[in-house]
């Protein structure tokens, strides 16, 4: 079987810096650009909020909007932006979909009320009461809004994407493997167009109670990734990216402008039981991708999360790479977990399309080049190493 070339023809991007690829690119290209922060909603945590979105433009039915909470709405909105950008609205029936998902919002008030009433009671007393409080308090729609696979379900319902639907779980790694498998299927001829991406809302106490015990969240005022003293820390950021992938032949045949080529995606999961394992995993992935690197300047969009140990491992790998420039989006956007990798691939595609990199985003960022190739790195906060290699449309 001949492997077909895969190209990116549509980007739907939302971050704390703005709604859409244009707004984000303008903000990231501004040398005086600054992060957008929310230090009150989940104080003492400083987080990157998602801007207000004109939801009606992408989710026209209010009934659909009501069936979702912010996380699913954000993903469904960004997916629509990607379809519009690719001019692919009429191709959704046979479009394949892979979403990288966490979980949707819980009912915070109900959780707090139940825990407050029952936590101190003996289990034989609290058990029956818990059943009663949940049965009377939970809203049926909230179950659907919370279900991981229903971001994909809503994208099918709202936008009509029905070729297939898969949802990957597993924090950062889910985003990278969603992209890898979506591209691999197209490359071997399983369909000709796919939609892949994810969304993340940072300003959620129900996520902080999960990520907090990971021990890797940054506690303190805003600082760029390189300025977070050992052992570093993660500042979560709301963001979403969906990408329309196509075989090059399919894109050319329908006259769709190619934003960038996706030359390869590779993933691994080192056990991280000793220093150097993540770095070695990244080096192994690069061995697989390096032969596909387009000639010319190579830039890196770093997936550094802010966590110090992962940053050191990635730094060790990048030191051997000899890239001409590095950008660290987490210093401006925060860390978007499941959505992060596809957001960074979207930035790489925009850089290739526009022939320029964002302005330096972190004091440690280096190089100013018009990249011919961009390597996107992904480092899970706990597990997962990923690389994606892109090149310009004309390469």
């Amino acid at each position, binding site marked *: 079987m001949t492997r077909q070339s895969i190209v990116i023809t549509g980007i739907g991007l939302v971050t704390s810096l703005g709604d859409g690829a244009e707004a984000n690119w303008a903000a990231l290209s501004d040398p005086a650009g600054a992060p957008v922060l929310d230090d009150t909603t989940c104080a003492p945590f400083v987080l990157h909020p998602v801007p207000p979105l004109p939801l009606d433009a992408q989710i026209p039915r209010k009934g659909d909007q009501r069936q979702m909470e912010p996380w699913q709405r954000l993903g469904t909105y960004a997916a629509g932006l990607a379809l519009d950008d690719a001019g692919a609205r009429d191709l959704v029936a046979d479009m394949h979909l892979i979403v990288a998902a*966490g*979980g949707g919002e*819980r009912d*915070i008030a109900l*959780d*707090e*009320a*139940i*825990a*407050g009433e029952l*936590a*101190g009671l003996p289990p*034989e007393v609290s*058990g*029956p009461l*818990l*059943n*009663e409080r*949940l*049965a009377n308090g*939970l809203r*049926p729609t909230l*179950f*659907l809004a*919370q*279900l*991981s*696979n*229903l971001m994909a*379900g809503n994208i*099918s*319902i709202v936008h009509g*994407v*029905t*070729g*297939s*639907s*898969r*949802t*990957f*779980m*597993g*924090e950062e790694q*889910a985003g*990278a*493997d969603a992209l890898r*498998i979506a591209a691999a299927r197209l490359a071997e001829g399983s369909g000709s167009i796919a939609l892949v991406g994810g969304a993340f809302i940072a300003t959620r*106490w129900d996520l902080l*109670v*999960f990520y*907090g*015990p*990971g*021990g890797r969240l940054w506690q303190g005022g805003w600082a760029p990734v390189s300025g977070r003293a050992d052992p570093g820390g993660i500042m979560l950021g709301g963001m979403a990216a969906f990408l329309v992938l196509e075989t090059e032949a399919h894109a050319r045949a329908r006259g769709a402008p190619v934003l960038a080529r996706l030359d390869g995606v590779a*993933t691994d*999961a080192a056990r991280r039981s000793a220093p150097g394992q993540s770095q070695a995993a990244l080096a192994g992935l690069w061995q697989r991708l390096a032969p596909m690197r387009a000639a010319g300047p190579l830039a890196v969009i770093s997936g550094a999360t802010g966590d110090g140990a992962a940053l050191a491992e990635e730094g060790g790998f990048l030191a051997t790479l000899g890239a001409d420039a590095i950008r660290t989006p987490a210093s401006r956007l925060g860390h978007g977990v499941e959505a992060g990798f596809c957001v960074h691939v979207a930035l790489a595609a925009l850089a290739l399309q526009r022939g320029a990199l964002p302005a330096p985003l972190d004091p440690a960022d280096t190089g100013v080049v018009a990249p011919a190739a961009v390597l996107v790195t992904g480092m*899970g906060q*706990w597990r*997962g*190493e990923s690389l994606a290699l892109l090149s310009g449309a004309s390469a």
Partner: protein
Amino acid sequence: MKDHRGRPLVAVTGIGTVTSLGWGREENWAKLCAGQSGITRITRFPTEHLRTTIAGTVADAPGPVLASPARTERLASFAIEEALAEARLGTPGHFPGPLFLGMPPVDIEWPARFELARRAHAASYPAMVAVATPETGIFETYAFGGVGERLAECFGTRGAPITLTTACATGATAIQLGVEAIQRGECEACIATGAEGSVQPEAVVRFSLLSALSTRNDDPARASRPFEKSRDGFVMAEGAAALVLENYESARARGAKIIGLVLGAGERADNFHRTRSNPNGQAILGAMRNALADAGLQPGQIDYVNGHGTGTPENDRMETFGMRAVFGETPPPISSNKSMIGHTLSAAGALEAAFSLLTIRDQMLPPTINYDEPDPNIPLDVVPNVKRAAKVAHVMSNSFGFGGQNVCLVLAAEPS
């Protein structure tokens, strides 16, 4: 040996299963063929105030009640170990391929929430987050990637484990991803597993609120009634199945026993409603037809269908529509394992693929039990109540999920 699309054939060389009927492939299969039910009253937690108080649970080991991800991991681990023992591939702690894990999305459960509130002397989220330190173990327990990571470490699978959910089609999607990886030549072998261990109060309440569950609490063994006139919903259940998938040629070359083939997979998403199929049945039909086309078969070559058969009024009606539309006036027999083991949700697609392969191995159709009164709107041969010997070369296994995610697999005997 290639299939009709020029892809490597994919063989199954190992199967492991655990359900409410018991631990292990042969015990499960014997009890399924005997028409036994694994559905009982829930004893894991108090059931006062619940509309549904029955389920197909798998008991935890003696000790504290496990959280869902820990239970899911325990069940998956058992199934993988049994499958590996049959396949005789790799060495302990070293499997020469990746892991595809279908499992439910998990969330911090109430005992852990109560513990945080007690530590914080307050129940507000900010107070709980302030005391939610690493030693609580919450992150690694409830991380979506946590179960896959621990299984990958235990069995020494290669590369990043893939964890996925497509609701009630999850187990079938895991198999499909594994099959595709072999077809693409990314690996010669892999483990595909679907596991489910989430019978806990909040999950039961949530499914109850969707009016999805049977409330026939008085007679648990007779509550799951797929395709039967008085069916009133599905019964939540737990379990796991694992398949060792291999490139057929390399499996033959190493002298492996071939249990059967995964000949094809088809999927189609529905865009109608979050919990209901489009009444036009297009997505279900599309998944079934895509699976046939992927396998290179005509409808008449399917000898038996392992149905999704949940026992909800809606599913069984739509599945009947699909059966008649795809297979015409004389569809092949269809039976529902869920009549005995309940709806194992994220595990169902994998368990039912496993039992489809055993159907082929033993040339025996497992029954649909509790089939007392036929539903005139379901004119299907559901293998009522008693197993039946039959000549079976090709089986279709259906999985239709909430959120409109539909997957059908075609399982086949080894080519003669």
